[in-house]
């Protein structure tokens, strides 16, 4: 579904990504793990068109999207939940969800909002409140809900666990898993390697802008090098 070939990105002289290649199959849930500053967010931004690429190709369903504008990429069905959630804080929870459906023109939007309220009942209670006044966990739920409202083909998540209490993280990850079970393809960037590896099918390990390892998440969980570098064992 998504195929990245030899992608490189620079910030001025600093190389953020060099020769990154990876692929994500339809229906898969794949993670990218790595330390702070490894280039994880840059890669997600490049896929979404928020970051200029220096060379390389990004194919989505067969066509190269590396040079498209970000809002056009969103229309193709790639939706990102940015790091720090990027909520529209002066809009209500429900308005945030509704804007998630910005690119849709069908009549099912209200139905989908109800579905999200079933998944996250707290959001129904808070639906008239400004998104900016919610707790971190609730905001992450709004961000996930907003992304789902576009009925994405590929959902990109940037550090969904960041700044959240462990119990909230569990809830968010349970929701992510349910989404995958319903057929959404998901790509997660996550610093918490254990968490990411435990819910994904496959994973890539990024170090200093290069992919240094890849494989089944289960195997990576048992890999000595991964254990030492990322799992703190």
């Amino acid at each position, binding site marked *: 579904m998504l195929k990245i070939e030899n992608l490189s990105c620079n910030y001025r002289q600093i190389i953020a990504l060099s020769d990154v290649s990876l692929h994500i199959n339809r229906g898969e849930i794949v993670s990218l793990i790595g330390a702070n500053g490894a280039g994880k967010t840059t890669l997600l931004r490049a896929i979404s068109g*928020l970051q200029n690429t220096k060379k390389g190709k990004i194919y989505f369903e067969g066509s190269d999207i590396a040079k498209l504008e970000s809002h056009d990429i969103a229309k193709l069905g790639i939706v990102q939940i940015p790091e720090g959630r*990027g909520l529209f804080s002066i809009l209500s929870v429900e308005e945030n969800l509704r804007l998630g459906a910005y690119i849709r023109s069908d009549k099912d939007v209200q139905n989908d909002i109800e579905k999200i309220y079933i998944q996250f009942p707290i959001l129904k209670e808070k639906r008239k409140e400004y998104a900016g006044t919610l707790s971190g966990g609730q905001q992450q739920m709004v961000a996930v809900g907003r992304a789902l409202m576009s009925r994405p083909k590929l959902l990109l998540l940037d550090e969904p666990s960041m700044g959240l209490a462990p119990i909230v993280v569990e809830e968010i990850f349970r929701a992510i898993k349910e989404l995958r079970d319903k057929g959404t393809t998901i790509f997660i960037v996550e610093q918490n390697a254990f968490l990411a590896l435990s819910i994904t099918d496959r994973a890539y390990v990024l170090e200093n802008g290069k992919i240094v390892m890849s494989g089944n998440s289960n195997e990576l969980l048992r890999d000595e090098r991964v254990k030492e570098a990322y799992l703190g064992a």
Partner: protein
Amino acid sequence: MLKRYNISQDIIVLAILLFIAPFFFQNDFIYEIAIVSLLNALICVGLNMLMGYAGQVSLGHGAFAGLGGYIAVILSSNYGISPLFSIFIAIVTMAIFAFIISKPILKLRGHYLAMATLGVGIIISIVLNVEDELTGGSDGMSVDSFSVFGYEFTDSLQWYILCAVLLIFTIWMFKNLINSPFGRVLKSIEGSQKAANSVGINVSHYKSVVFVISVVIATLAGSLYAFFSGFISPSEASFSHSIELVVMVVLGGLGRVYGAIIGAVILTILPQLLTSFEDYQTLIYGAIIIFVMMFMPKGIASLFDDIKRRLFAQNK
């Protein structure tokens, strides 16, 4: 439904206040200040949409208002075109101008955007000073009286009513716009450009549209000001006028519809009270911005919220 009702309610209150106000105006000088306040408020409503909702700072709106005013004045005084039609042409011209410059300028953010609008503003002001055959240079030029379909605007009350009606109408449009899908898109851009992009919103397009709307409103107000005062000079388009407008919006409250009016009224009256400090005006404005940012970043309009909340809490 309730929301709509509330909107018309505040506008009615505003209309009543504006209607009662002239009974307390004892002389032409006070009228003049009131009219200038209304026109500044008009520009601020547009600028507030750009700054408070779309999150884009402009340090060039004084220059846009001035240039728009010059276009209208030159067309009517030098070419004999009727004032109303001159203003219309000025608006169309400035809208096209704003649309063209918005494309490169609004790609910038934060300080860089502010610097770019500042640059455009200064260029406009230099051109108005230098092109003296057309503009009268730094001495400015006198302006013919204003008439609409033969009806002449001569006394202050007529001007006051015209400006008040325009302001009420603009606010009514503004409120409807902010609570429409278009307004939600603007608020989303203010919240997070990245996220707005990633739900498929063409952020740069919307920023351009708001920029154009705000420049159109500035042009209208700038032209009317020139016709009202019977005179226009490059100082209307100066950097300090642009700063003044930004201070009005910030003081009143970013993203607050009525904040812009409060800011405009206070900062139009204040210089009259501080005439002996004229040399320090820009300094005082700077101090106001710092003070507002430190102690009430949401502006004066937010103080009313606090008062309302306290009253409400007591009733409970």
